[in-house]
């Protein structure tokens, strides 16, 4: 199976990445090169195998925890916004999305 230039354009859009034409070309060759080694995986019979997300689930039950729904963090708005590219009156600025 091989990816096409159209696939690259579609994924780049999904991933919100602007690629220059030469970058797209290189990406196509390299990703197709990688999928060459993925073929071996496709041949494995995995019938009845449960996918594993947390590795320690190999030996014990792992359930994702929920913590109590109580505020535990102090308000650090200024600190949290100190590395933001554009902030005004405590709000993150983005290009206009609603006319």
């Amino acid at each position, binding site marked *: 199976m091989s*990816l096409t230039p159209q*696939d*690259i354009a579609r*994924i*780049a859009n*999904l*991933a*919100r*990445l*602007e*690629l220059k034409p030469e*970058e797209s070309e290189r*990406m196509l060759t*390299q*990703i197709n*090169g*990688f999928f*060459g*080694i*993925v073929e*071996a*995986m*496709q041949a*494995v019979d*995995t019938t009845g*195998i*449960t*996918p*594993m*997300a*947390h*590795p*320690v689930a*190999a*030996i014990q039950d792992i359930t*994702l*925890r929920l*913590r109590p729904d109580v505020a*535990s963090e102090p308000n*650090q708005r200024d*600190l*949290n*916004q*100190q*590395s*933001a*590219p*554009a902030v005004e009156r405590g709000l*993150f600025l*983005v*290009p*206009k*999305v609603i006319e």
Partner: protein
Amino acid sequence: MTTLHDMTVAELAQALKARQVSAVETAQHFIARSQADMTSAGTGSFLALNPEATLAQAAASDARIANGTAQALEGVPLGHKDIFVTREFPTTAGSKMLDGYRSPFDATVVHKLASAGMVTVGKLNCDEFAMGSANENSAYGKVTNPWDAARVPGGSSGGSAAAVAARLVPAATGTDTGGSIRQPASFCGITGIKPTYGRASRYGMIAYASSLDQAGPMARSAEDCALLLSAMCGADIDRDSTSLDMPSEDFTASLNNSIEGLRIGIPKEFFGEGLAADVRAAVDGALREYEKLGAKLVPISLPRTELSIPVYYIIAPAEASSNLSRFDGVKFGHRAKDYTDLVDMYKKTRAEGFGNEVKRRIMTGAYVLSHGYYDAYYLQAQKIRRMIADDFQNAFKECDVIAGPVAPSVAWKFGENANDPVADYLADIFTLPASLAGLPGMSVPAGFGAQGMPVGLQLIGNYFKEAQLLNAAHRLQQATDFHLQKPVGV
């Protein structure tokens, strides 16, 4: 007294407690060494220093030593991989995306090591967002291998490994997703351990592949790694949803236990034709040492070793594409200057901020997660991942620890794999299986290969058996002096 930078963590901790040297003097010594390395034709290990903050931490250590409240590692300096967020130092993750970023908080691991008394010297170079095997993917320049400046230090914790090998710091933190502690430790001739997935908190460790990322220490000896690991581990229930509810241990307690009768599994798949002869010779030599120490070598099989490459390079990029969606030019980090609308701003920001390898992994990840491909790639990889983990459990019925090479070769020369990312992926073959299974693994200096480059022996333990690994590593280091060797000029 030995020169400060030739002392181990254990020796420094003792000298500081005995007040043979002050924490401030110690900090000054390592700051000066690191500054010299940053300005001359150095290793490129350090990305940021903050002498004022370091000396303030050291002064606080001296005060605690004076008033009798000194902690286990009081006043001992260390460097942090730049993937851990820190309040007092910039954090870049080796990416242009985070140029100038300052974190409002410290990562749990950073906090825990500071609570154990350690003093932060600075932040260490790494592959961008920890994606790479040679530290060639950092946006802030390469790191050279202290054993041969024409060679890579390994990656992604390349700055950490090079800084320890060049004795710029006695110890450093690293992170290991597919081998990023073990492989650079092997390439630079130092000792490093990745604990069981979930033992060290991931809070404040900039996420690459969340189901694989794990923090660990890198130092010259197993004893030093045990000291740091004891301070790093422990539950972080409210801040890391995958943190195991399990207390840390004193990993130094069993270092000197006898290893008489220890069964060491030798996976035949780790000794195939892809393994360089010089690496094999060093690894075989270390295994003979183990036999002299009373251990028994047991042949085992890890039949899906080769499959771990595609499985890892599907799962890790999938998780990366999701984790790195947060870099959008809104809340922190780089934002493009010119754009037409919001989506255009995202696209240009990410195009400018990310390097090639990161873009490739985001693309691969987005593809395997996309509609129509999820089952065939991502889910299939997660299923084979369980089979790989089960293979290890079968192997551990016959042995206590598993040993083999860390990497198929010694550190390669710069540029050798530059146009072929798959060549780097293939070189990760021996570290990926334990990563996918979430098992603890370490690299221990095992000798030298071609051109005098260091070779690491990989030890893999069963879940939560870090103490056993460190014990086995320490016993080897009592019998050999590979970990005491230093590069010419250091």
